[in-house]
């Protein structure tokens, strides 16, 4: 059977991609579009390393079929920085030293970004809950939570961007 051509708008740019029905969105974005920021950790929806926004909703793209995303808007970690400027969430991760090996970080940042759009002033407990689907082997999470809370504060002060 020939591949199917689907349309994906990734970080504002529209692509036509030929995919097999059993390819995941993660595989397609990484291998066909060359956007390798999103990571594959578990491949089964448990670790969050592959988190991206699909039509504005945070999903684990390792268990989404690419054909299911046909015609959708996708935002990946590569889409957060604007004009060479890190997004406040990314900046806070850097400043708070929330990153060790970095493998979980694209997913963490996407989940934090998603939370702060819905809830600009979260409590620590809300941050922990929002990141429950994102595993980190290195940091022990404390600095990640601090970074998210710091980003929230900065975004409120700056009158919220993105």
């Amino acid at each position, binding site marked *: *059977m020939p591949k*199917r051509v689907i349309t994906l708008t990734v970080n504002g740019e529209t692509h036509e991609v030929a995919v*097999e*029905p*059993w390819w*995941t969105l993660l595989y397609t974005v990484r291998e066909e579009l060359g956007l390798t920021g999103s990571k594959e950790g578990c*491949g*089964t*929806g*448990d670790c*969050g390393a592959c*988190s991206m926004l699909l039509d504005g*909703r*945070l*999903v*684990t793209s390792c*268990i*989404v*079929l690419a*054909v*299911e995303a*046909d015609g959708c808007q996708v935002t990946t970690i590569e889409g957060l920085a604007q004009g060479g400027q890190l997004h406040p969430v990314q900046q806070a991760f850097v400043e708070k030293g929330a990153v060790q090996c970095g493998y979980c970080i694209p997913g963490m940042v996407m*989940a934090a970004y*998603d*939370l702060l759009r819905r809830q600009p002033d979260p409590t620590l407990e809300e941050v922990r*809950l*929002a990141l*429950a*689907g*994102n595993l980190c082997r290195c940091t022990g999470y404390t600095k990640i939570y601090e970074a998210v809370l710091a980003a929230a504060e900065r975004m409120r002060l700056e009158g919220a961007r993105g």
Partner: protein
Amino acid sequence: MRPFAHFAPRSLDEALDIFRREGEGGRPLAGGTDLVVQLKEGGHKFPYPRYLVSLRRLPELRALGWHEEQGLRLGAGLTMAEVASNDWVRQRYPALADGAGLVGSRQTMNMATVGGNVCNAAPSADTAPPLLALEAQARIVGPQGERLLPLEEFWLGPGETVLRHGELLTEFLLPPPLPRSASLYRRHTPRQQMDIAVVGVAVAVALDDGGRTLKKVRIALGAVAPTPIRARRAEAALEGQAPSPEAIARAAAIAQEEARPISDVRGSAALRRHLVGVMTERLLREAIERARRG
């Protein structure tokens, strides 16, 4: 994943036509949080599908409406995030909001559908006890037409349902709650999030007009039998009674007897049975208290 074909119909009729035309070996795909993982891991109980039929774009599976007499229509294709945040669900069917709000992570809840949770037929499915306690009916549409089934009759065993090839669960119907009623769902898990219920308990209670006796009691248990179950003898023991601590404790003890748990990696049969007693008693008390406050 091994190869399969994929169809993306835009209406229920079109979906049913595809199953009819393509024949055996098809599988509906909703959020994919069970199915895609099973296809990747090979842990599924059915033969590897030849084709998948996506339910994502079927408007018929996205019904959501409230009616004073008929109650709630809840499309099978609604996501856990949509169900858990819906005001009708939160106010009138809180047990269901509790259950939907526990399914995995934010990511999982954005993908997982309530229909998929029920059709996957895990004994531990977190929306199953709430839907049972709230007396949901399931609308099933297929090549032979349509039927409405009490949810209790939907499951046959772990991973097994009454659905035949080409049949789809389209929506749930939940009767309106009685006055002075309340419902809730809790599960026991070692971790707060991203875990599977060792035991799940849902209760729904309604008090009579004077608030002195229990007019209606529904108790549903998850992860303690091959399918989610109602604890009917426990319900009957409490209905018509004053909600005294003794009567509640007796009902909880009967619910324990009705559970048929097994031992597995998540917990022993003895632990599960113990939890059924403790949780049922606590949930009944809390639900009765809430029903009193109105």
